[in-house]
């Protein structure tokens, strides 16, 4: 990955200055430490910070076509660039570099705005068509590469990260309280909004077009599922072979690079599948990286070791301690640029640091398998609740929830509790929110800590906002696919791929590549009947079938362990971080104004007494702390951080 930034002035000529672009791109140094490039036109400026991965010699950006009428700055990778280059050369295009970037300008010449449909990759592209004074901002289908924009007077500013946009703000930004409400419901903002008022993301699969001085949006791809039982009609064996072929190719093209490529190894099925595909079906030298924890319930080291032994991979390992999380949390929020409800991104940042230290710039990971191929417990919970909804009076049906939550007491006396929590919307199983309502309502309990002022400033309903983003044919999909869509668009797009993904990788100048998120894999999986994703409660059924002979049996057969990291214990153990405690003080809570200082004090007291052990307390503490840090970094310190040269 790299960093891109730029400015388009709708009104005046020659207002875009090199100084503005330099200050914007300087904030993206961590994304592209290998070089910078700037190009200024009449009303447009493009800037680029480079992490050199393909064509180390002539790959500097911005890059142009033959007659310099089309220019681009681009962050990401076009994995099928070799095939596209061959196609374009055959059509008469002349290339001056060996980069994947140059494919973009020639492809645009050939196909206009539809060029993007030919790309297989992860990208944020800014393309300027000089002759037509037309600017395109394009983001990949899934939302792997970030791209943000804002309108300031007559200018549109865009960048890979928000901190770069803030260099052009005259005054400190504001927190969007409706989005805070969304984060405290879904763990993520509803695209295209961000926690910053008046700063938006280009949504995954979308293109922003500025043409004839008008800004329009166009969607070129979205998750779409088969309707009315029109699924792929083949047996398990045939479908699992097709899936494997697709995954091998998705992995193969993601190894294209002029620098060595490594892989993350968590010990779960997904990363193990990717690592074994690299080992068994490519000639890429295997190099793996993993992280572990002191606490056994978070640690997967034994499974990592099993695969390392099985494949004989050269491996680097790091143990993440509670103190590490405590020490790294502020810097983590600097990179996420948004409040989070879990500390889980922190170890991912530490892990990318290990990769960087070993002089690797690119890693493949198993991200996306759970969303694409049906792995999450929330899909199981949806199936069980749907199963229960068929006979609401059944004594036996809700007992299946024990499969997910073994601690549940499903005795008669607890039936009321079970119905109260897991029984939500059971009488309305076709509601759009059916699959996620228990998670969302559980998370939303953290809103009890909002101050009266915050509550008064929330003017939209998070669920209604989410519902408005759903595609027209959403209700025609199988309930399992509806759950997949919501998961992909909310938690994956708004948290896993950015706060826990790109931002934690790029904090250490490392690029992540995700074979399970190849759009061909997604499109294939979306045509499968849900029974191929989850057979009864056996998750990722077809993937297990596809990888059965390639992986150690203890990995294929193991129960899924969600990736988690220590939350409250990281901050309230033997070592206290004074700056964090200060941000949680009554004075700072009152000063920033988002939370009720009395309630926060009660929560801290509960934590000090060791009584805060529940999920809600953990989410509330991390949500409050990260919001306080966010305000401190981007609002309280705005002038110091972003305006120091003025």
């Amino acid at each position, binding site marked *: 990955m790299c960093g891109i930034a730029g400015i388009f002035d709708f009104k005046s000529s020659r207002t875009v200055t090199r100084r503005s672009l330099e200050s914007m791109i300087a904030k993206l140094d961590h994304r592209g430490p290998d070089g910078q490039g700037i190009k200024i036109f009449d009303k447009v400026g493009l800037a680029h910070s480079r992490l050199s991965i393909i064509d180390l010699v002539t790959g500097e950006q911005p890059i142009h076509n033959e007659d310099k009428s089309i220019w681009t700055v681009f962050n990401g990778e076009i994995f099928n660039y070799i095939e596209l280059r061959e196609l374009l050369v055959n059509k008469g295009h002349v290339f001056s570099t060996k980069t994947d970037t140059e494919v973009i300008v020639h492809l645009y010449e050939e196909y206009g705005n539809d060029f993007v449909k030919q790309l297989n990759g992860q990208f944020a592209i800014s393309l300027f068509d000089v002759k037509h004074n037309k600017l395109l901002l394009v983001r990949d289908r899934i939302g792997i590469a970030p791209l943000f924009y804002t309108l300031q007077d007559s200018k549109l500013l865009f960048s890979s990260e928000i901190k770069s946009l803030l260099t052009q703000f005259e005054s400190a930004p504001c927190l969007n309280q409706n989005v805070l409400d969304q984060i405290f419901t879904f763990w993520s903002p509803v695209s295209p909004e961000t926690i910053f008022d008046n700063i938006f993301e280009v949504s995954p699969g979308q293109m922003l077009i500025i043409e004839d001085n008008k800004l329009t949006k166009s969607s070129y791809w979205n998750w779409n599922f088969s309707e009315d039982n029109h699924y792929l009609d083949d*047996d398990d064996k045939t479908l699992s072979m097709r899936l494997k072929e697709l995954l091998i190719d998705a992995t193969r093209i993601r190894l294209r690079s002029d620098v060595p490529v490594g892989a993350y190894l968590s010990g779960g099925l997904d990363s193990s599948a990717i690592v074994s595909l690299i080992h068994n079906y490519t000639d890429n030298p295997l190099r793996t990286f993993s992280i572990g924890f002191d606490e056994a319930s978070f640690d997967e080291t034994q499974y990592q070791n099993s695969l390392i032994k099985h494949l004989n991979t050269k491996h680097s390992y790091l143990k993440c301690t509670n103190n590490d999380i405590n020490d790294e949390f502020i810097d983590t929020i600097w990179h996420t640029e948004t409040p989070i409800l879990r500390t889980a991104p922190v170890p991912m940042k530490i892990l990318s640091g290990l990769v960087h230290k070993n002089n690797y710039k690119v890693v493949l990971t198993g991200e996306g398998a759970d969303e694409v191929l049906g792995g999450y417990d929330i899909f199981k919970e949806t*199936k*069980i609740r749907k*199963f229960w909804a*068929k*006979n609401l009076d*059944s*004594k*036996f*049906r809700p*007992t*299946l929830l*024990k*499969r997910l939550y073994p601690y549940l007491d499903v005795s008669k006396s607890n039936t009321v509790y079970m119905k109260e929590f897991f029984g939500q919307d059971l009488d309305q199983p076709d509601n759009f929110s059916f699959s996620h309502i228990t998670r969302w309502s559980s998370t939303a309990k953290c809103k009890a800590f909002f101050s009266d002022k915050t509550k008064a400033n929330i003017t939209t309903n998070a669920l209604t906002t989410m519902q408005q983003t759903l595609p027209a044919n959403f209700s025609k999909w199988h309930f399992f696919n509806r759950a997949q869509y919501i998961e992909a668009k909310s938690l994956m797009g708004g948290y896993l791929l950015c706060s826990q993904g790109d931002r934690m990788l790029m904090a250490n100048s490392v690029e992540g590549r995700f074979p399970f998120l190849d759009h061909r894999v997604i499109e294939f999986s979306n045509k499968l009947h849900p*029974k191929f994703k989850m*057979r*009864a*409660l*056996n998750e990722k059924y077809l993937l297990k079938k596809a990888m059965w002979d390639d992986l150690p*049996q203890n990995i294929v*057969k193991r129960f899924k362990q969600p990736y988690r990291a220590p939350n409250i214990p990281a901050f309230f153990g033997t070592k206290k971080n004074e700056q964090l405690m200060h941000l949680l003080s009554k004075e700072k809570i009152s000063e920033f104004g988002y939370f009720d200082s009395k309630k926060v004090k009660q929560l801290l007291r509960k934590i000090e007494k060791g009584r805060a052990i529940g999920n809600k307390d953990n989410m509330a503490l991390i949500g409050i702390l990260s919001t306080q840090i966010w305000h401190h970094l981007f609002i309280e310190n705005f002038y110091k951080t972003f305006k120091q040269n003025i």
Partner: protein
Amino acid sequence: MSIEENIRRYILENYLFTEDQSELDNKDSLLKKGIMDSTGIMELILYLEEEFKIKIDDDEIIPENMDSVNSILNFLNSKHVT
């Protein structure tokens, strides 16, 4: 695939984690042999409902209907699954 093959495969893959047909006899008691526990039975019911588009009532969840491949086949037959 016959219904018998379907049920056998489901139990072998999901509870015994194997494709080896010799590990399951149609007369084996799923509970006594430790192949399934009580939530395993409910998961099997979820599977039967999904796969054969039937609905199973609480009073049908008894060992006579669910405890072996043979008893499951008889039960499905009584539900007119063909």
